[in-house]
């Protein structure tokens, strides 16, 4: 039994079994996440195919530069997470701490950008649902011209999708904070780093979801 690793649970035969089980469990959980988001993608696809011109027009109100920035930020955070797993496998825990902190930083940037996007929308009456009443002129765009039928559907879908995605980012940040403290206290080793691996998988999935959200909402 490793001194740094957690003990083997009595109902497992060996660490390999315990690790594989945890990982399979995580993958199954990720699949439930995919299906959860699939509902919103279906809603998006249905309304987009019914009202393509409305969706094209409404998406002009989203700033693709901010979306692209967030994409790069999230990709970078995925990269740092992948690196952190590389180093935890090698037992270089101080590097893991740095990389996880960088991941946290990226996640924080992502949320700050989202905050500005959301508050910019709210300030001009772009709310999900009944409160939708765009007004004002920003960057030469007259928002009141976007008060057209089915534009509320686009923004409802936008807010629900990015909102639920944002919740996932926040949850991920919480887990990373917890992970950093554990790494710093030397809880993980090349023999046992299951929580780092699983959190990494979760984070990559959050990234993948955004990879689809970005072009669908901001670009096309």
């Amino acid at each position: 039994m490793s001194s740094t690793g957690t003990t083997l649970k009595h109902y497992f035969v060996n660490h390999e079994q315990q690790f594989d089980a945890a990982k399979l469990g995580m993958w199954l959980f990720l699949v439930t996440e995919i299906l959860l988001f699939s509902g919103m993608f279906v809603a998006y696809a249905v309304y987009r195919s019914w009202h393509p011109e409305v969706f094209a027009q409404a998406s002009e109100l989203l700033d693709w530069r901010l979306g692209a920035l967030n994409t790069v930020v999230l990709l970078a955070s995925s990269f740092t997470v992948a690196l952190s797993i590389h180093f935890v496998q090698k037992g270089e825990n101080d590097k893991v701490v740095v990389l996880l902190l960088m991941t946290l930083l990226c996640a924080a940037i992502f949320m700050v950008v989202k905050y500005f996007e959301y508050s910019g929308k709210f300030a001009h009456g772009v709310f999900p649902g009944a409160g939708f009443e765009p007004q004002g002129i920003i960057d030469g765009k007259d928002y009141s011209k976007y008060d057209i039928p089915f534009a509320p559907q686009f923004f409802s879908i936008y807010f629900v999708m990015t909102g639920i995605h944002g919740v996932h980012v926040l949850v991920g940040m919480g887990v990373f904070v917890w992970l950093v403290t554990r790494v710093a206290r030397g809880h993980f080793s090349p023999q046992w780093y299951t929580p780092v691996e699983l959190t990494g998988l979760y984070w990559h999935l959050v990234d993948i979801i955004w990879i689809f959200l970005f072009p669908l909402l901001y670009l096309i």
Partner: protein
Amino acid sequence: MSEGSHNYLSARKGLWSWLATTDHKRIGILYAMACGTFFLLGGILATFVRTELGTPGETILDQDGYNQIFTLHGVVMVFLVIIPAIPGILGNFVLPIQIGAKDVAFPRLNLASWYLFIAGALMAVFGWLFVGNVDTGWTFYTPYSSGASNAVLWLTSAVFVAGFASIFTGLNFIVTVHKMRAPGMTWNRLPLFVWAIYATGIVQVLATPVIGITMVLLFLEKLMQIGIFDPALGGDPVLFQHFFWFYSHPAVYIMILPAMGIISDLMGTFSRQQVSGYTFIALSSVAIAFLGFLVWGHHMFVAGQSALSSIIFSMLTFLIGIPTGIKVFNWVATMYKGSVWLRTPMIYALMFLFLFSIGGLTGIMVGVLAVDVHLHDTYFVVAHFHYVMMGGALIGLIGGLHYWWPKITGRMYNETAGVIAAILVFIGFNVTFFPQFFLGSRGMPRRYHDYTELLPNFPEFAPLNLVSTIGSYILAVGLLMILVYALYSLFKGPKAPANPWGACTLEWTHTGRLPDEHNFHETPLVTRGPYDFRLADDVFGPKEED
């Protein structure tokens, strides 16, 4: 391995040892108590519904009262009883032992899912008692639900939370079956109950998240009018039905597959015969699990979906009839040249075959496009799904509970009482639900508080409804009788031998009267299939009752 101080019940004492347990067997019992309570509640609601319909006009409930009662009956029975019951109770108790594991892969997650389930149930009850009345039906169709009282918010949240309990249970079992099997327990030596719960897990993991997002969207629709499902805001109510049935049709297989697994084990054990077509039954469970995702649109033939997709869905629906048929034929064939021992669990297994066959064949009827146009949303459908849900899933559960009762409690129940109750349940069930086929095909719509206005044209509605109501009382008496002798057995029943049925799956052959806290003294080495009675006889012949 006789009576010792180390069995799972005596190893720890006190309320906390139950509420904080991670032992899969104890969690199974926690589920049994919770589901049992909800079943009692749902059953009482059902007798209210039947009493109201027993005579024309307002009998005991006004229109709104009736609508709330049938809504609650549906929500409680579907989300709090049939979906969690078999995986929660018997899956938890039996599955890890059957594959020779000491516990499920994630015991703490297992306990957490029970608490999520309870939290969901409490939210539903809270919403119902303190927020407002819910009369949307368990299907929550928009725009009716988005315009209903705020209690709908509580109920949708409850379904969301309870849904995650279901996901975690399924996830746990899939990983357990993949990673925790004892040495020698190959895939083709898995008991068919394990195969069924495994297939159920796949459905739980893949389908349940969609009811989650559906409930989130419905919640937001009601809270902020996001306009996805509400036609007044430009939404599409039929889209809601797609979302809802993408989960709720596979959910039917979450309910029935575990019961099919129980029946497979019962048919093998009580015929002392290798279950006929083991591979076909095992794989048909998985096939049903996957095909179950492709057929949800058959709930929507008249709902306003495109005719073309109705045609596609109808075609796919029939594909599911094939693996289901394979199972039924194989179960019957298992008895051929066997040694059929007609004890209470086997009586329930045969009852399952009878009732489920009717449910399945009428399922073909309502899957046919043109016939469904007439039968949709009538009592024919009500009768059909009660034959499948109650005659299938619940009768399977009751049979399974009788079968594993000695292993769970260490005591026997009274066999005579068991047989009498089974006969009462059988008669009561058919008297209740068979007349509803006539009611429905003659044109009585479901969710009807009253049928007085239809009597001039359809005078037969009155006697048929009366018969159905009387049947429900017989059914209630039968079910209550089970409760009585089960409680009696719990305290006064004779002690059970370790293997009263001469079964040869691991939970019977490798554990004592009550399983140990960690199931086995030493991990079993499996050298034969689950129904190799001839090989098992030499070592584990039926023991004399002591």
